[in-house]
């Protein structure tokens, strides 16, 4: 446990200095700032109050860029260290593989979650200062959704990172994962539905299995369905399961999926050659 925290701390320090982290901060901080400047908060469009509209737009953008950010920066954590022989040296010290792997994971989690969470907070603070009401429920739900989105893609990234020996292959694999999941969020699903070639149940299942779609529907579910343009799949899901049940699922399922991948990665890390 002591070494696990040590690994986490060192990984946080190392990442916090790195260029990718700087870009990451800039992108999410800048995104929020951009929303302020363009005045998304000021307008009341289609019944949205300014602040909740701001947060929803933030979540919509996050769905697309957060996963790829997590994937490309994290897949190199183990595969990159392996390729550059850093792993050989660091693991020649008496640290258990458990502490090493989960410590790195914990460190990464802090590093990827903190900026997106802070940007969300920043938006809320700005909105409240501008005279909005503090949207407690929204803040809570969106924080939880961001947390579980981070968890699932970290899990997948660590899985790829331990399984693949070369950094380039790891990058390629993450890109494929991202594009695939992105392709199957609502828009593509509607296309399939319209073609009527696929069974509706099959499409719903696809939607429920895709953590990105689950996140999207979860984020949108806080709004009145009459007012939002949420897409038929999202509408169907919320209508069938109810908002609360779906939200619970939207938070827990990605965490569960991330944990499964993280454990598979850990298993591979222990059972395969380290170098």
């Amino acid at each position, binding site marked *: 446990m002591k070494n696990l925290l040590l690994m986490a701390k060192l990984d946080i320090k190392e990442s916090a200095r790195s260029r990718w982290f700087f870009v990451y901060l800039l992108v999410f901080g800048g995104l929020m700032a951009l929303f302020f400047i363009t005045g998304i908060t000021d307008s009341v469009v289609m019944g949205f109050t300014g602040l909740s509209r701001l947060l929803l737009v933030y979540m919509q953008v996050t769905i697309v860029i957060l996963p790829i950010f997590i994937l490309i920066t994290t897949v190199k954590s183990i595969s990159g260290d392996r390729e550059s022989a850093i792993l050989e040296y660091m693991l020649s010290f008496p640290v258990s593989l458990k502490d090493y792997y989960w410590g790195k994971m914990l460190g990464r989690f802090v590093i990827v979650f903190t900026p997106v969470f802070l940007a969300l907070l920043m938006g809320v603070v700005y909105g409240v200062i501008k005279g909005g009401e503090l949207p407690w429920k929204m803040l809570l739900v969106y924080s939880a959704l961001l947390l579980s989105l981070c968890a699932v893609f970290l899990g997948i990234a660590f899985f790829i990172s331990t399984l693949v020996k070369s950094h380039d292959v790891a990058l390629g694999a993450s890109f494929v994962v991202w594009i695939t999941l992105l392709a199957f969020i609502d828009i593509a699903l509607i296309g399939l539905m319209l073609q009527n070639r696929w069974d509706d149940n099959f499409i719903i299942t696809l939607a429920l299995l895709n953590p990105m779609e689950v996140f999207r529907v979860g984020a949108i579910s806080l709004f009145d369905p009459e007012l939002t343009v949420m897409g038929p799949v999202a509408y169907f899901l919320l209508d069938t399961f109810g908002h609360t049940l779906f939200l619970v699922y939207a938070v827990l399922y990605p965490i569960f999926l991330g944990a499964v991948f993280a454990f598979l990665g850990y298993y591979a890390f222990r*059972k395969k050659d380290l170098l």
Partner: protein
Amino acid sequence: MIEVKDAVKRFLDTNVLDHVDLVIERGDKIALMGPNGAGKTTLVRSILGFYHLDSGKIEVEGYDPIKNRVKVLEKISFIPQTPPPIKLSLTELLEYVSKSTGTKEEDIKEEAKRMDLDISKNLAKPFFKLSGGMKQKLLIAIALAKRSDILIFDEPTANLDPKAREKFYHLLSELPQEVSTLFITHRIEEVEGLINRKIYMDLGKVVEDERL
């Protein structure tokens, strides 16, 4: 101390370790030699628990390097063939070493001084930004400060200038009698005075094992 029994490690259908048998006793000072690709690094990595053997087994003081990696690595200091581009700062690296092994940071700094390396000026620098020789010296200092029962060096002097090399060999000659060392080296004449056993590997086999 270290027992390698009928070890086989295969990469892509070639036996990189081909039924290796080897016993390293307390106080053995070994030069491990052999042409490029003979399997020297692979043998060392197997002892350190990085590779899963295809058959046979390795024990370090009775412990399996994979099942009991912490127990095994507590007893070993290791210096790799090339210094890795570690991104941690020296302060962080020293913290990692001292917390994971129980070595005092002071001892590492002391050893570094004995290698003519003053790290106090570079503590905030990332390790990979040190010069090649400085990196090597620091790795040596860490390895010595750890006070391990077994030292394993994979060609440790490649980046050192002649003076630093002298220094390094001098420090090694001061090691306690009961410490075992295993050098991988291509320059036997340099370590001649420090060793009492020569092992020669080729094509994954131990082909010669001579006590001096």
